[in-house]
């Protein structure tokens, strides 16, 4: 199973945290800080999730869409690529790549239904144009691996299927961060199992030892996830809007009609 991943383009595209954390100069010029950058991406991950619930696609499609969105912003600025359009476009593209196509018309209907803010209300035409730009930004690499499959297999192996619900939820939450761009999916799965086992006070030391994985990496990822939960509490809508407002996209880019 893992062999698939190691030879995949996903593996070859893994990046270092420092590379992922680069705020592109057009955004920097507008005063976007690294924290703003992270908050906007998290907000957009949530937005994708909310839209996905409306159009009813699997978690896997959401995970792929969020990964696309995060990859786009390792290469392109938010000034040029409005996150409010990139996010739904990534969901649209992921639904096609994962073979559960959502019609553009339907997606736009729900975009308008859940957003009263004009800045989010894009048309089909905008979505389709952005689709090409996103594809090019991704260099047409669309196959993405996720921690879910490894998670099920590992839990089975560890005889800890009772922790499926908790650890699955933890994996979902990792998409609010950039982990999927940095670590192999199965390491992310292990970190989630590690956190779950600590929370449930299960002793997994022997099992982890047998796996012969680098526990430092597992623990580092776990710490990042726990740190994220701590910080997450302090992020509210106001903070998110403040970050987005800095972008202040020119109206001409938003609406042409």
């Amino acid at each position, binding site marked *: 199973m893992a062999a*698939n991943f190691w030879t995949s383009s996903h593996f070859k595209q893994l990046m270092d945290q420092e590379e992922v954390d680069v705020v592109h100069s057009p955004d920097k010029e507008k005063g976007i800080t690294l924290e703003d950058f992270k908050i906007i991406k998290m907000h957009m991950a949530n937005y994708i999730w909310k839209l996905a619930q409306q159009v009813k696609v699997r978690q896997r499609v959401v995970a792929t869409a969020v990964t696309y969105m995060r990859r786009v912003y390792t290469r392109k600025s938010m000034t040029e690529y409005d996150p409010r359009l990139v996010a739904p476009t990534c969901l649209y593209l992921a639904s096609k790549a994962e073979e559960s196509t959502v019609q553009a018309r339907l997606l736009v209907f729900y975009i308008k239904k859940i957003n009263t803010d004009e800045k989010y209300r894009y048309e089909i035409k905008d979505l389709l144009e952005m689709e090409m730009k996103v594809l090019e930004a991704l260099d047409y690499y*669309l196959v993405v691996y996720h921690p879910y*499959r490894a998670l099920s297999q590992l839990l089975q192996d560890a005889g800890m299927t009772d922790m499926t619900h908790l650890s699955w939820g933890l994996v979902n939450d990792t998409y609010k961060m950039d982990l999927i761009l940095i670590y192999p999916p199965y390491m992310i799965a292990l970190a989630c199992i590690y956190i779950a086992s600590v929370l449930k006070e299960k002793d997994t030391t022997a099992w982890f030892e047998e796996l012969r994985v680098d526990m430092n990496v597992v623990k580092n990822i776990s710490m990042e996830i726990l740190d994220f939960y701590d910080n997450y509490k302090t992020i509210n809508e106001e903070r998110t809007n403040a970050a987005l407002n800095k972008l202040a996209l020119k109206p001409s880019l938003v609406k042409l009609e």
Partner: protein
Amino acid sequence: MEKYEKLEKVGEGTYGKVYKAQDKTTGQLVALKKTRLEMDEEGVPPTALREVSLLQMLSHSLYVVRLLCVEHVDKNGKRLLYLVFEYLDTDLKKFIDSYRKGPNPRPLPPSLIQSFLYQLCKGVAHCHSHGVLHRDLKPQNLLVDKEKGILKIADLGLGRAFTVPLKSYTHEIVTLWYRAPEVLLGTTHYSTGVDMWSVGCIFAEMVRRQALFPGDSELQQLLHIFRLLGTPTEEQWPGVSSLRDWHEYPQWKPQNLARAVPSLEPEGVDLLSRMLQYDPANRISAKAALDHRYFDNLDKSQF
């Protein structure tokens, strides 16, 4: 796209025309696969997206046609997507035809059949190890470089990444002649075995220079298979009679497979019979096929 000079139209792919073209600066021959993007409808067709993303993943194998790049052009308001592939001069169908028809009909050299089959199994094993089923293997989809004796898998438009557990896939996918019996019988769960059945049919076709099971309807296709291999029984293939499209069929006894491929040596017949097992679970995998003794006298260092 000014980089390329179109030389001739060489075919129609699953979703668009294919041109032979030449890179003006390097002189390299390429195959251009054109896809029109209907921007007022649904953007880039999912089949094209799937092919591009699977190819991006798989095309570092020698036995899968290489995708060199993707070009997106706007021409008079029409949006086109070109997939730029390496160019190979023919496909296995035309290649086999050239041995069957024309001024000098003759069998394919046994060593060439062996080499082509080995390369095909390599390519299929590569796809399967990446979790991708091709689902439409047929001679037209196998490109051949006559000079170098190279065979590569192309047209992954119907391929899809499979995840475990395997889910129901849509039906109506494989060209009838190469379609596995479980697909014809309406199975809801299918896997790598569907590609191996096709490989078996292609193997036999190289030997015979004509299709092994040339059915023109789903029923005819099944009857072709049953007449040669015998009507499948519950014993050979547990669960067969509960498949959706199973009916009571005439009871044919299995024929001697060697008689269908008279010029094939016994090891080859053995490998073929393992590819044409009724129960998909018993069908040989691409990886195991590479180790079959039919390939014992093949110089594998060249692959």
